[in-house]
């Protein structure tokens, strides 16, 4: 039976916890990005991330610390993502299981680029006009809904969605340009 780190003796448990925390904190943002790119709903992604975190902690005793933590964590996250979508299979608007599995595999291969893409995105956001930065703060930072922003800005919800769509498209192009300049993606 797999030993549960939580059931170890007090001193061992503290050591394991600190070791886990150190490894986990270094990989956490990429695991979260991986999950969010496959589970776009924020609340659902929270759930999947929490479940992943718990499985990682409970399985930590089986992890070979001489190996890289991130691929192991991403493997657990992949499994949790697939489990999540499996529970949604009854909904007619869910992608097929085969497609979700393919996307999950494709996303694994792209996780290594997450840090570079985040850095490029940060720089691109810096160059946005104040109104678009305000939109990012409200929509992504404060998690305000498009309805709330529409009311606040006296716009239609459609206009807010469109503004988000246009902004993300220009940011995507900006990120690609920056990465290409750095030789990180083919032009």
């Amino acid at each position, binding site marked *: 039976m797999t030993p549960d780190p939580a059931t170890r003796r007090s001193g061992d448990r503290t050591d394991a916890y600190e070791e886990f*925390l150190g490894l986990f904190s270094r990989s956490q943002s990429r695991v979260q990005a991986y999950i969010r790119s496959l589970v776009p709903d924020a609340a659902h*992604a929270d759930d999947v991330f929490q479940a992943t975190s718990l499985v990682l902690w409970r399985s930590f005793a089986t992890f070979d610390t001489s190996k890289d933590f991130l691929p192991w964590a991403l493997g657990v996250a992949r499994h949790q993502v697939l489990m999540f979508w499996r529970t949604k299979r009854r909904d007619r608007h869910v*992608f097929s299981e085969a497609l979700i599995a393919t*996307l999950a595999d494709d996303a694994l291969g792209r996780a290594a680029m*997450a840090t570079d893409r985040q850095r490029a995105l*940060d720089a691109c956001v810096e160059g946005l006009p104040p109104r678009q930065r305000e939109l990012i703060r409200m929509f992504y930072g404060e998690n305000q809904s498009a*309805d709330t922003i529409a*009311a606040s800005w006296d716009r239609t919800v459609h206009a807010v969605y469109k503004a988000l769509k246009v902004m993300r498209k220009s940011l995507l192009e900006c990120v690609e340009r920056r990465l290409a300049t750095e030789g990180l993606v083919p032009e």
Partner: protein
Amino acid sequence: MHDQNMPNDDQPNDDQYRDAHERLLSLTADFLHGTLGPAETAELESLLVTDPIARQAFLDASLLHAQLAATPVALGYEPIPEGHESSPSPVAARFQLAESGSEPDTMQSRRHGRKNNAALAAGLLLAAACLTLILTESAVPRRAVPDRLAVPAVAPTELNELHYDNRQLPITTVAVLHDDGSQADAADTPATADRTITPSTLESTATGMRLTSSDGADVQLEGSSRFGFASGDSGALYSGSVRARVKDPSKTFSVVTSNLRVVDLGTEFRVSQLDAARVAVTVLDGDVEVQSRVRLPVCYWPFDDRDKSRRGTDHRGMDQRVTTDAMQSMPTALGDALQRCDGIVGQGAVRFDNSAGSFARVQGGTSEKVGLGTLSAAEGISIEALIISRWSAAFLDYDEIYRKEDGNCRVLLCFQNDGMVNARYSEPNVAPGPCLSFGLHLAGRDYKELDMPLDGRAGRPAVADLTDGRPHHVVATFDSFTGRKAIFIDGTLRFEHAYPEGTLIVSGGPEPAFIGSMTGRENFHGVIDELALYDFALTADEIAEHHTRARRGETYFGPRPTRPDSARWQAITRITEGQTRIFNSRTGLAAE
């Protein structure tokens, strides 16, 4: 979209490729917004299944969407418009554990804006509110659902193991905002028609704002004003001036200003916030009644009916012991493992053994929608209890004191130690470790927890201080009129965070409240007594007084309140047509 298997003579030209790429990005954006219909879902799936380049573009767009939440702009690490950003404020208080007699320490300023991994992670998971209906929702565009995602109000069946039910439950509609051009700015997009409003704080410009409450009152914000529309029959004035007219004689509308309430009696009236302490009430037609707040709890469980413990029936038809709260006579089922014991104050208390059967489940105070019900609070809240804690403080061990889990509009007060797993909820950011957590959903800000580190530093108690086998007085408060969210231990302020004034709580709903548990999990270990819930923020002086009384073995309030029909407000005076009176909004006394 490009198909690698396509013969060369059928290869799409550049224009076709661009069009296909645009279409893919458009579908992906709708997917991320949750506005993709079934036909478009099938179209997108078709593109993704057949084309690896399309999948790459899809994942890049999705990743960018996820990573936007982790940018410095989203995380608030850059200057933003005044009045929008919360700021942690140092608490100049002294740490003095009443029971242990520890030497006081001076509190230190909190560091703000740490760019640690926890914060980045927190930001990442705060990403995009647009992603809601997506695959699991119908094709109904989200704009049809005001502010909130409509998810069936059924009991959670797929809670994750860390027990956060993140559903967004249906929320009550409080008003219709009329767009008559009065608040239009230099928009490059046409203004919208009337819009429904859920509980939120509205800020009008110099031209004002006009609304109709869901109960039919005409409400006008005059000039630059800030008004918290908390329900269909009332709202809170934070600044400026509001004018209300009630057409239906069977309805009322009231305006709350801190400790004062103005209730129409079939009339038209105006309330103006003159300064931080004074309000002017003018009656334009008919009469109004001015009332002051009854500063007693909404619900209060003294657990003193120890010898009168009786049998009752819970929601599953099972026999269980029952106690009642002293204010509303609300029945509260006691779990099988919950034991009656000697009171910290009074005759009785309840002892929790950390097992699944040790809980107290409040029966009542719920409502069909978030924003309603006896156990909802909007303008302020206090949770007060006497506890003897035996919390282990182990990683992922949670001990609940009080929790009402209405999706992400939950209210909780509990001990936590979950490292960075739930760091995204913390506001302000704190270092991982054991903490006492006070969670609320704040309008426009989502669900946030004030996680007071139990580290024995800067005036905060350590875990050992609160698990020393002695009783401790614990109070958590939030006041929309000051924006302050705070935790008091043994009569003294220990930790707080400041939000913008006028930030409303969004709470209440269909889920039952639990004392010492979260729907039968995360059970408390120790004794809870004298648990009280208020729909306003107790002041520091009141809390100190309650603590002093509790140490003397008395109830918080002196004589035990036994007011099953207790009103939340008491009349001060009546004002008639043509009169203007000025009041102190905190004391309720005339201030002319």
